[in-house]
């Protein structure tokens, strides 16, 4: 902490003022973000009312009932059981979609950051545009295109890849993965762009001066430097994908492409076994905790570097 900081922020009375300013927002987050997590636990560890079939949360942690978790773990760890298949399928979809996104996003972000030149503003508008178009509208656009008599089939038949129209919207993993990539890739591009744009070009000049080939300069300087951005981009699109249920619902509608999010949605909003849904949420959160923790720690570190 510098002298200056101490004078402004460190004063005892001043500090109370700053804390007071933060209080409403902090209180809001504790009330509507942290407290609800406790309620999820209480419902997951609670019971179901035998007559009305409504969940009865158990507020006292000493009396928590583990039957919902037993049900979930049984479905997860006995081989071939329902939840296990769904979890593995979700993992495969997310890994494939994230990898494809990275392969597409990196060259685009790299080009705009490095060579945008006088087109940069226009290119950036194109990259930001998806943020102003609702995700669901972008899926609707693909429903239009992928229908039996849609343009995708028309084009594929015209080119000669297909002989007859293919039913793209009925339980095809490829359609769901296409939807995921299309839906989430703008976040990754922007995360990569912001980082690549800040790489100091003189580092590359130095690499070239020292005899590196252009490709070596990329491989030995740019790529290692952009590793944190790649990881951030992967985390930032993988996390929401794990909770996605609307992309498979809209682009496939079939149980054969059901993801973890579909199961949670089914139990929480449709079902009689809300505790099972809550337990699924808890399990998903524990699974994602590593990714989330990585993101929070690395962001905090980056902010500290900025002089927080």
């Amino acid at each position: 902490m510098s002298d200056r900081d101490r004078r402004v922020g460190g004063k005892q009375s001043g500090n109370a003022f700053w804390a007071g300013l933060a209080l409403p927002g902090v209180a809001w987050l504790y009330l509507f973000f942290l407290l609800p997590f406790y309620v999820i636990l209480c419902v997951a560890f609670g019971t179901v009312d035998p007559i009305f079939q409504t969940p009865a949360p158990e507020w006292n942690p000493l009396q928590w009932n583990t039957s919902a978790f037993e049900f979930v773990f049984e479905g997860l760890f006995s081989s071939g059981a329902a939840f296990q298949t769904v979890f593995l399928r979700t993992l495969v979809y997310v890994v494939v979609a994230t990898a494809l996104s990275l392969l597409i996003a990196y060259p685009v972000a790299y080009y705009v950051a490095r060579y945008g030149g006088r087109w940069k503003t226009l290119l950036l508008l194109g990259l930001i545009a998806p943020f102003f178009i609702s995700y669901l509208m972008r899926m609707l656009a693909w429903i239009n295109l992928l229908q039996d008599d849609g343009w995708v089939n028309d084009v594929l038949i015209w080119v000669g890849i297909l002989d007859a129209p293919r039913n793209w919207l009925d339980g095809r993993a490829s359609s769901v993965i296409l939807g995921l990539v299309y839906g989430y890739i703008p976040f990754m591009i922007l995360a990569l762009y912001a980082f690549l744009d800040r790489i100091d070009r003189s580092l590359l000049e130095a690499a070239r001066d020292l005899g590196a080939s252009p490709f070596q300069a990329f491989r030995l300087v740019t790529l290692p430097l952009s590793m944190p951005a790649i990881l951030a981009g992967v985390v930032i699109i993988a996390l929401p994908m794990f909770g996605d249920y609307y992309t498979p619902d809209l682009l496939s509608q079939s149980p054969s492409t059901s993801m973890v999010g579909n199961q949670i949605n089914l139990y929480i909003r449709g079902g009689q076994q809300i505790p099972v849904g809550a337990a699924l949420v808890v399990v998903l959160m524990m699974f994602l905790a590593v990714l989330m923790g990585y993101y929070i720690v690395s962001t905090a570190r980056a902010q500290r570097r900025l002089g927080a």
Partner: protein
Amino acid sequence: MTIVEAPVTGTRRRTLGRARDWWANPWGKPRFLVLFTVLYLIWSIVPILIAIRFSFNEGRSRSTAQGWSLRWYLDDPDLSVRHDPDLRSALFQSLRLAAIAVLVTVPLGVALAIGLTRWRGRGAGTSRAVSLATLVTPEIVMGTALLLVFIHLLTFIQLGTMAQAIGHITFSLVFVLIIVRGRLLAIGPHYEEAARDLGASALQAVRLALLPMLVPAIVASGIVVFAISMDDFVITQFLSSGTNTDTVPVRIYSQGRTAPTPALNALAALTLAITIVIAALAFLLWKAVRAARGQTGSAVQEFAALDADTIR
């Protein structure tokens, strides 16, 4: 910065090697990358344009072009956006929630950002971590959590607009925090310090020295909150109390596969148009404010960097 010409080797390279150079050489002409980026932009934008085109169809199809008309916007007596009460109410609910979200989240988030940036104490770090956690929590988790808390604990909050608004404020708070905090760190503590030295109270220093400098960041965060509120689907659906509190994305979800007419495309296109107009007006305001504060450079580029900062 000096421009270094790529050394001309003179030897003919294989195509593969050249492609690799376009990719890697920071000073050569990256023809492969140009092509790739243009293809990406086409892939990203053309499906939307096609969906908008179908909204003007004369016929019922959403997959083939059938003439031009405003049937699905205005004319159809039952199914057009103007006459179908479900579609109409979805549009209004979207706008209502976005307005509430902007009006509540921006002041709450600005105070939170200033407080958390200047406050030195054990609580500050924890609160910062909690707000970042909202950013990475999948929406389905937050939606479940809020749904259960409103059903079982805070039962005086009804599902519907009230609950949805609380949800929107909760997930958009962190965006205001990140944008305003970034600007605060750039400004540094000197101005407040000078104000305090000249006899201003802490509150006066914030109001008279800090807030005017934060105006561009505040407007920018308003645009972002508006856009993510209009875009939100999961939390809105989980906290909806029925068709009358469905928003546009929720309506697209429930009708997208079951009751398809181009009216749904029309609703989506209309929402997009409204979002773009409002965001563009706010963007122009932001640009003007920014210029008045003497900041130069491409506004779009700065806004993109801002947008990117909120997601990394």
